[in-house]
C-alpha cells in the first residue's frame, strides 16, 4: 500500500466566517478527525503558499481557524476565499491535553492572537467549570478594536473569571488598561503548589508573564506555553522550526515550562 | 660631440630627456606580467648604464633613466634577452625595440589572480602585442578583466573589457537571491525575481559575472565563450580629454583583433602628415573624418558573432579646452 502523501492538502468547506476585527477572522471549517486545542493546520493556498494556523475552536465536525491577515497567504485568504473552501493539511503538533489541567486551579494568560490556540481550553472549562478548581482567563489586546471572540467572552464571563485588558484604550472603552502582567500580582490563587499557568502570546509577553508567575510562586512544572515558529512542512522535515534538539511542529508547539525554558533559538 | 637623430632614437624606444646627454630606455612588458628572473637584467642595465633607478610607467613597463646616449648600443645588447623572453616582435635582433609608437599593451591582473576577471587579460594582451607590434603609429591599447575597469581602458584608444554571458540553470536555483542582491549592490541591477526564479534583463546586463560569483549552487555559470566590450578613443591631453565610448558589446576576440589591425590602415590613410613629430591621436583623425568613415575602415572583413551589438554613430563628450 502506498502511504498517503502528507504534502497534498485536502479540501475543507468554510461553514461560517466570524469577523472579529478588520484583519482577524475565524473560519469555521469542516473537519471530522481527532483534534486538540493548540494543534495547528497548514492552511494551503495554491499559488500563494501555506500558513500554519492554530485551532481556535473544536465543534461537531468542524474546527475553527482564526486567521490574522499578516502575509501573502493570509492576505489572499481574506481577499478571495471567504465563503468558499480552503485546502488544509493537519492537524499537526501535540496540542494541549485538557486532562493535564482537570481538577486544578487554572490561570490562562493570553496576548492577542495567542488566545486562539488556547481558546479550546477556555471553551472546555467554561462549559465544564466543575472540572477544575477555578479558572481565570487573563487576556490582553492591543486596543478595543483588536478584541477577538467578543461573543465568546459574553459566555465565558458567566462561567469563569475573566480579566481583559487593552494596551491602548479609546474614548468608548471603560475596561482595564495596561499589560497583562499588571494584573498578575492582584490575582488570588489559592493553591500555588499545584495551580496551573498557561501562557501564550508574543515572545516578550510570554517571557515577562512567566517570570511574574514564577515570582508569584507558580511551579515550573505547572506552567505551560505554546511556541510559534516558521514552518514549511509541519512534519519534521523542513527544519525551520527546530530549536536545539526540538522540532516545534512535532514535539510542540505546546511545552511544559520545564522543557520550554530550554528552548533557545 | 653628440650628433643624434632624435626621430630614430625615439622610434628605438629611447626618450629625449630634459638632461642634456642623457636618455631613458623604455622596456615593454605586454600585459604587465613578467617572470621575476627578468628583474635582475633590468637592474643590471640601470646600475651599469643608468643612474641606478627604475621608473614604473603608467603603461606597466619600466623606464630606465640616466643612460648616456653613447651607451644606447650597449643597452640594446642588454635588452635583447628581455625582448626575447617576453617574445617582443623585432626587426633586427640586438638593436633594441623596433618602434615605440604603439605603446606597451597594458592589462589588469586578470583571471590569473583576480576573482572578478572574466578572462586571462595577460594572454590576450600578449596576443594583441604579437598582432600589432612593431608598429610605430601612436596606439594605446589596454585590457581589463571586468567592468570594474581597473586598468582604466576608457582612457585608451582601444579598451577591451571582459564580459561573460551568464548561463542560468533554473533547476539548480532555489531563489536565495544572492545574485539579485549582488547585481543590485555591486553592478547594474539587471536581475529580478519572477515566480521565485531569476529573470536577467539582457539589455541591462554588463556581463560582469557577479551573479556567477555569488551563486551558491552553480545555477549561474559562465558562458564557454568569453565576450568583450570594445571601447574606443578615450584619451588624455591638452585639448579634449575624454572617456572611450562603447563601439562593440558582446564582441569576440577575433573581431577585436581585426578591428584594431584595420585601424592602422585607417590611420595610415588619414593621418595629418604635418602633425608635430608625425604623431596624431586616432581620435583626432576620427573627429576629422567622421565616425562613419572610421567604422567603414574598422569593420572591413570583420566577422561578428550574432550576439555582438555594434554601436553607432558614436559620440564622445569630454572637456573641450580648445574652445571648439
Amino acid at each position, binding site marked *: 500500500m502506498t502511504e498517503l502523501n502528507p504534502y497534498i492538502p485536502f479540501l475543507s468547506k468554510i461553514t461560517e466566517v466570524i469577523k472579529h476585527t478588520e484583519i482577524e477572522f475565524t473560519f469555521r471549517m469542516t473537519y471530522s478527525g481527532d483534534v486538540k486545542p493548540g494543534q495547528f493546520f497548514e492552511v494551503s493556498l495554491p499559488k500563494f503558499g501555506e500558513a500554519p494556523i492554530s485551532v481556535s475552536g473544536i465543534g461537531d465536525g468542524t474546527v475553527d481557524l482564526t486567521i490574522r491577515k499578516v502575509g501573502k497567504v493570509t492576505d489572499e485568504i481574506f481577499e478571495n476565499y471567504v465563503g468558499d473552501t480552503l485546502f488544509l493539511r493537519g492537524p499537526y503538533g501535540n496540542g494541549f491535553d485538557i486532562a493535564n489541567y482537570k481538577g486544578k486551579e487554572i490561570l490562562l494568560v493570553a496576548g492577542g492572537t495567542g488566545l486562539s490556540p488556547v481558546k479550546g481550553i477556555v471553551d472546555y472549562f467554561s462549559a465544564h467549570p466543575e472540572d477544575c478548581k477555578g479558572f481565570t482567563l487573563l487576556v490582553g489586546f492591543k486596543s478595543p478594536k483588536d478584541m477577538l471572540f467578543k461573543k465568546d467572552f459574553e459566555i465565558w464571563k458567566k462561567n469563569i473569571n475573566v480579566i481583559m485588558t487593552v494596551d491602548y484604550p479609546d474614548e468608548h472603552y471603560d475596561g482595564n488598561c495596561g499589560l497583562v502582567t499588571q494584573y498578575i500580582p492582584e490575582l488570588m490563587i489559592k493553591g500555588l503548589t499545584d495551580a496551573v499557568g498557561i501562557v501564550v502570546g508574543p515572545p516578550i509577553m510570554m517571557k515577562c508573564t512567566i517570570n511574574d508567575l514564577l515570582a508569584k510562586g507558580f511551579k515550573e512544572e505547572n506552567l505551560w506555553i505554546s511556541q510559534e515558529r516558521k514552518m514549511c512542512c509541519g512534519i519534521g522535515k523542513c*527544519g525551520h522550526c527546530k530549536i536545539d534538539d526540538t522540532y516545534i511542529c512535532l514535539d510542540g508547539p505546546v511545552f511544559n515550562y520545564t522543557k520550554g525554558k530550554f528552548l533557545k533559538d | 660631440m653628440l650628433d643624434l637623430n632624435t626621430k630614430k632614437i625615439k622610434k628605438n624606444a629611447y626618450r629625449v630627456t630634459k638632461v642634456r646627454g642623457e636618455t631613458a630606455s623604455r622596456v615593454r612588458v605586454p600585459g604587465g606580467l613578467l617572470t621575476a628572473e627578468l628583474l635582475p637584467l633590468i637592474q643590471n642595465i640601470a646600475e651599469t648604464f643608468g643612474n641606478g633607478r627604475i621608473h614604473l610607467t603608467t603603461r606597466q613597463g619600466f623606464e630606465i633613466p640616466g643612460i648616456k646616449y653613447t651607451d644606447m648600443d650597449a643597452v640594446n645588447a642588454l635588452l635583447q634577452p628581455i625582448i626575447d623572453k617576453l617574445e617582443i616582435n623585432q626587426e633586427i635582433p640586438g638593436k633594441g625595440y623596433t618602434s615605440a609608437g604603439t605603446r606597451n599593451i597594458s592589462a589588469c591582473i586578470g583571471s590569473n589572480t583576480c576573482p572578478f576577471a572574466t578572462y586571462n587579460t595577460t594572454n590576450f594582451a600578449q596576443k594583441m602585442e604579437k598582432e600589432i607590434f612593431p608598429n610605430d603609429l601612436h596606439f594605446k591599447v589596454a585590457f581589463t*578583466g571586468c567592468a570594474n575597469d581597473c586598468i582604466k581602458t576608457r582612457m585608451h584608444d582601444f579598451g577591451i573589457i571582459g564580459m561573460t554571458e551568464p548561463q542560468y540553470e533554473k533547476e539548480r536555483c532555489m531563489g536565495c537571491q544572492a545574485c539579485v542582491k549582488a547585481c543590485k549592490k555591486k553592478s547594474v541591477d539587471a536581475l529580478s525575481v519572477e*515566480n521565485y526564479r531569476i529573470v536577467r534583463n539582457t539589455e541591462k546586463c554588463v556581463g560582469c559575472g557577479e551573479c556567477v560569483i555569488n551563486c551558491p549552487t552553480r545555477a549561474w555559470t559562465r558562458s564557454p565563450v568569453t565576450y568583450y566590450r570594445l571601447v574606443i578613443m578615450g584619451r588624455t591631453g591638452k585639448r579634449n580629454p575624454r572617456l572611450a565610448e562603447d563601439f562593440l558589446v558582446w564582441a569576440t576576440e577575433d573581431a577585436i583583433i581585426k578591428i584594431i589591425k584595420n585601424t592602422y590602415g585607417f590611420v595610415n590613410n588619414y593621418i595629418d602628415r604635418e602633425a608635430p613629430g608625425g604623431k596624431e591621436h586616432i581620435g583626432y583623425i576620427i573627429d576629422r573624418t567622421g565616425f562613419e568613415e572610421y567604422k567603414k575602415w574598422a569593420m572591413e572583413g570583420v566577422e561578428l558573432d550574432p550576439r555582438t551589438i555594434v554601436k553607432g554613430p558614436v559620440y564622445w563628450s569630454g572637456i573641450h579646452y580648445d574652445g571648439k
Partner: protein
Amino acid sequence: MGYQTTAEKINAIFSDLSKDYLIYAPKRFVGDGTFTYIDTIRYGEITDLAEIEFAEKSNYSFKEVLLPISETLFYFTENEMKEADAPKKGAIVFLRSCDLHGLKRMDTIYLENGGVDTYYKRLRDHTKFILMGCENSFENCFCVSMGTQTSEDYDAYLKVDGDNVLVDSRWDYLDAALAGATQAPVIADSVTANDTVVTIPETVPQTLFDDPFWEEYGNRCIACGRCNFVCPTCTCFTMQDIFYTDNGKAGERRRVWASCHVDGYTDMAGGHAFRNDKGQRMRFKVLHKVNDYKRRFGTHMCIGCGRCDDVCPEYISFANCINRLNTLVNDTVKEEN
C-alpha cells in the same frame, strides 16, 4: 562477492543498467566554478567510468540526487492537486564512505523524524549506492574524527585501476552480470587518519549560546549559505508556490533547498524573526551538527567531509570552530569547578 574485471565490462553493464537507472557520479564541470576557468566537481549523469572524477573530492555532495535543489511536489489547478510524477528510472549513485554516512542522516530526517516523506522515499527506494574508495585523505577531511571513514552500507564498491576494475558486489544484479569474472577478495580503500582532527565537546552548556565566541563568526560570516548547500547532511527546505504566467489558475508547489545561514530562514508571516545575528546562526548550525542532533537521534550529524571548509568564501573553518568550541567548553567547565 569480490571480482576483478575490466572497465569495458563495467561500462557494458552500465549500458544495460541504463535502461532502468540513471547513473550519477561526481564529474568535472569545466569552467563551471565560481571564478573564471575554475572547474567544479559535482554530480551529473554518466555513461562511462572515465567520466567519474575519482581523484578529487566533489565540491557538492550526492544529496541533490535524492533531494533535488528544486523539486516539484504537485501541480494544482483551482480545485485539484496532482502529485508530480516520480522519475521513470531509478538511480545509481557513486559516493564515498563519508557520504554514505550522510545518507543515513538524510534517511533519519526523511524516513523517520515525523514520518515518511513521500518524495524522498520514492527516490530512495529505487537508488543503488556504489562506494568510491579513498586512498588518501583530501584537504579538510576529518572523517576519522567522525568515525565515517569506512562504510558497509553499499550495494557495490568499485575501484578503477587503469583498465582493471575491482568490484565488491552486494547486489544480485551485479553478481549475475559479473558471473564468469575473476573472483578476488576486494576490500574498499579507506583512510586511517586525516590531517584535520576535531574534538567534539561532550556537552555544550546553554550559557555558552550567548558567548562572545560566536560574535567573531557573526562578523566574518556573510550568510551566503554555501556551507549548508555543499553539506550532505543539511536537508532543510522551503516551499514555493508558483503559477504559470500563461495560465494564472494553474501552477505548482515545489520545495527548494534552504539554509539556516541565509536571511529569512526563521522569518514568520508578520515579520518576526529569531536569529538575525549571523554569529547566532553559526552557533545554531554548529551545535546542530555536533551536539543537539546527537541528543535527538543518537549520532552526530556532521560526517566530516570538510566541504564546508572547502567552500567558505570567508575562510571560516567549521572544523576549527569545533576545536575552539571544545577548548571554550573545557575552560568554562574548569572555571565553574
